[in-house]
């Protein structure tokens, strides 16, 4: 049977990746939906109200799955990582509690009001509830990322009585890592919202469904995607500068640098590694490029993993014993996921900019171009791939630490949970996620087939307080009963 450490790590990776498909999706869609409703409130154009409801229903679907899979995350620390919880609870628990108190209540309350409040609130107030929900999602991200950032770059603590204790709450929330992660992740939310919206619109245009309804949506999606992806690029670049400073091993691994490079440093566009020998097997290099990417100038060398490993062995003799002197993270995975993330990021900037150009009023050629629409349709999936790659870089690159330089993964797991229990929970979660993901995709496709007009009627019926709808339902039921009777009589 696999070790509990492996199973607990696998479970954490699986649940987090799945959860984090839905977080950017729902936050991005909340933003897009709120934006569309604002356009409706400002212009009074009923079409935008219908669009709001259409995209709102997709948003609510993803929100539902996102919320329920988030529950696992909070309890998992106690269930699978009890030693970790004991060691860092004094610091790590606080942001989680604040998140629940400050953000979860806000999100769930105001989203509930928005869902059921169409006829209960004035237009502006109704729109405001969704913006408040959006603020809630950002606050939620801020606190979660503050917790994660502390694991990457622990600050404001001291080790006392065999555990880490908080000495400065302000240091915790002003951790430079938090600010970088927050801007990187939240711009990622916006670009996800933009590309998903644009992708759905492109798909509907390809299918010739409600063409006039979706043209402006495609453009709005591309606009948000461009803003989001540009911001994301800048934030990501800044974050890598910080990573090089605080976690040089992670940085070197993402660039596949084993031996410290000369200055200027060449950049591996493609490379393959022999991880047990700690060597690069094959690589295609571009001169100067690594210096430019790292330092934004054509000179400067990058420290290699072998040298960093030797340093870490000296710096952390106890941890070195645990990992047999081997501080190397999974290099191949980091190298390639980093390239997927960065490559897609640039492609997304290019595509959103081109898309805006091709949909300009003078010559909107994209709407009629089937190949172009296909591209945007399939790029709907690129934010997920890029974001997942980004998290793999962040989390796997922290190896062998749960809290960088302070506490190892091996010391973190629950010693009293059996491998059998973990295997069982892993298997059930896996099946559950496949099921939820499948249902979610099925319903989204159904919704797209109904289109905006279909969503309008289907959606209003969601409101149990809407007497009008209930009355029509009553009539429909009576009518269908009558039909059946008639049929029987005939």
């Amino acid at each position, binding site marked *: 049977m696999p070790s509990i450490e492996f199973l607990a790590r696998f479970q954490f990776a699986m649940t987090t990746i799945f959860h984090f498909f839905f977080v950017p999706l729902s936050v991005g869609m909340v933003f897009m939906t709120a934006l569309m409703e604002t356009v409706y409130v400002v212009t009074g154009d009923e079409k935008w109200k219908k669009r709001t409801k259409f995209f709102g229903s997709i948003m609510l679907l993803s929100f539902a799955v996102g919320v*329920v899979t988030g*529950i696992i995350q909070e309890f998992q620390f*106690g269930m699978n990582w009890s030693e970790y919880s004991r060691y860092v609870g004094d610091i790590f628990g606080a942001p989680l509690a604040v998140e629940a108190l400050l953000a979860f209540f*806000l999100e769930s309350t105001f989203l509930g009001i928005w869902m059921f409040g169409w006829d209960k609130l004035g237009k502006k107030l109704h729109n405001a509830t969704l913006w408040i929900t959006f603020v809630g999602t950002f606050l939620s991200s801020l606190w979660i990322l503050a917790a994660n950032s502390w694991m990457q770059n622990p600050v404001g603590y001291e080790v006392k009585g065999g555990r880490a204790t908080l000495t400065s709450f302000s240091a915790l929330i002003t951790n430079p890592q938090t600010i970088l992660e927050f801007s990187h992740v939240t711009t990622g939310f916006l670009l996800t919202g933009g590309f998903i919206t644009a992708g759905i619109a492109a798909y509907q245009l390809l299918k010739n469904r409600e063409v006039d309804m979706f043209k402006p949506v495609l453009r709005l999606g591309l606009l948000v995607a461009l803003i989001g992806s540009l911001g994301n690029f800048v934030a990501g670049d800044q974050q890598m500068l910080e990573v090089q400073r605080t976690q040089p091993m992670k940085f070197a691994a993402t660039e596949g640098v084993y031996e410290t490079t000369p200055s200027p440093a060449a950049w591996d566009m493609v490379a393959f590694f022999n991880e047990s020998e700690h060597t690069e097997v094959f690589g295609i290099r571009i001169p100067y490029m690594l210096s430019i990417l790292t330092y934004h100038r054509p000179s400067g060398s990058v420290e290699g993993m072998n040298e960093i490993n030797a340093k870490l062995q000296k710096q952390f003799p106890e941890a070195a014993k645990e990992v047999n002197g081997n501080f190397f993270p999974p290099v191949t995975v980091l190298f390639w996921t980093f390239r997927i993330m960065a490559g897609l990021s640039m492609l997304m900037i290019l595509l959103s900019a081109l898309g805006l150009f091709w949909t300009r009023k003078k010559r909107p050629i994209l709407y009629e171009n089937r190949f172009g629409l296909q591209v945007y349709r399939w790029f709907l999936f690129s934010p997920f791939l890029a974001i997942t790659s980004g998290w793999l870089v962040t989390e796997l690159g922290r190896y062998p630490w749960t809290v960088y330089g302070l506490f190892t993964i091996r010391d973190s797991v629950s010693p009293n949970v059996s491998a059998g229990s973990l295997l069982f929970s892993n298997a059930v979660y896996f099946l559950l996620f496949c099921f939820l993901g499948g249902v979610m995709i099925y319903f989204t496709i159904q919704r797209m087939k109904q289109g905006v007009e279909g969503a309008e009627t289907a959606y209003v019926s969601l409101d149990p307080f809407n007497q009008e709808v209930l009355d029509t339902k009553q009539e429909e*039921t009576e009518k269908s009963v009558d039909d059946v009777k008639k049929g029987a009589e005939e």
Partner: protein
Amino acid sequence: MTGLQLFWFIIVGVLFSGFFFLEGFDYGVGMSAITIAKDKREIEQTIGSIGPVWDLNEVWLLTAGGAMFASFPYWYASLFSGFYLILFLILVGLILRGVTFEFRHHSHSEKGKMLWTRILGISSFAIPFLFGLMFTSMIQGVPMDARGNVSATFTSYVNLLSVVGGVAVLLLAWLHGLNYLALKTEGELRERAARTANKLYFVLYAGEVVFAVLLAIFTDFLEKHFWGTLILLAAIVILTVFAHLSVRAKKEMSAFLASGLTFVALVALIFQGIFPRVMIATNPAHSILIKNASSTGYTLTTMTWITLIILPFVLIYMGWTYFIFRKRIKK
């Protein structure tokens, strides 16, 4: 033990009480959707009564969990890893239940809708039962080492008291949900909810008596806190009787409040019973105490300020939600 530690022990208790008071009736409504609702429209009416609020009610659990992690990490670690499989089943229940509301609305076939309604109902039965099972097996004392690692076997979780406790919590939630339905709906459903509650209360009486007897046998509550335990047990019974009488007198609001307060009294009973411990070990030397399970004074102070500043706003907008959706729901 410091005042702050005591304060946070109480806060965790308050958050769990809030969770059971609020989410308790959501579970009861979920159970009613597959038991007392007669047709499609009544099912819609039943589930519609909690549509806008169930999600914010459930956040109380997340907040309770988060507060427990932040204020008593040793308790959080021992309890959650020690009751792994029960908690895991609760999580699976919460996940399935949580998606049913949205998935129901997106199902266009009656078959699909019925499937999600059933999942909602079954998970609504399972979750409070499992919570009851967990808390009542916790108070009996579990095998635990000096570090606080629980090494429990099947019978530590599932035994006479814990099963009775699970059923009692389930019944309480169901009754609380029926009282809520009587308060929030109109027509036949309202009548039927009250009638069902009236009958079910007799079952609850029996359950409470058995629970009290088993509590005296299997826990040290009476030994450690004689008067506190006695008073709270009495409070539970009095509140139950009061709720029952209110149901019969058609005073729906007081019935609902009384069944909610019964939950509060139950949580209070558990928290005062384990005091000054948070986890009871079969070997008393290994029990985890409030004074050595908590975070540092600095963290607790910071958390206290944050809570005192934010909580009033949370309560205000939650109250506003209930105010917006105050109307009774028609069939």
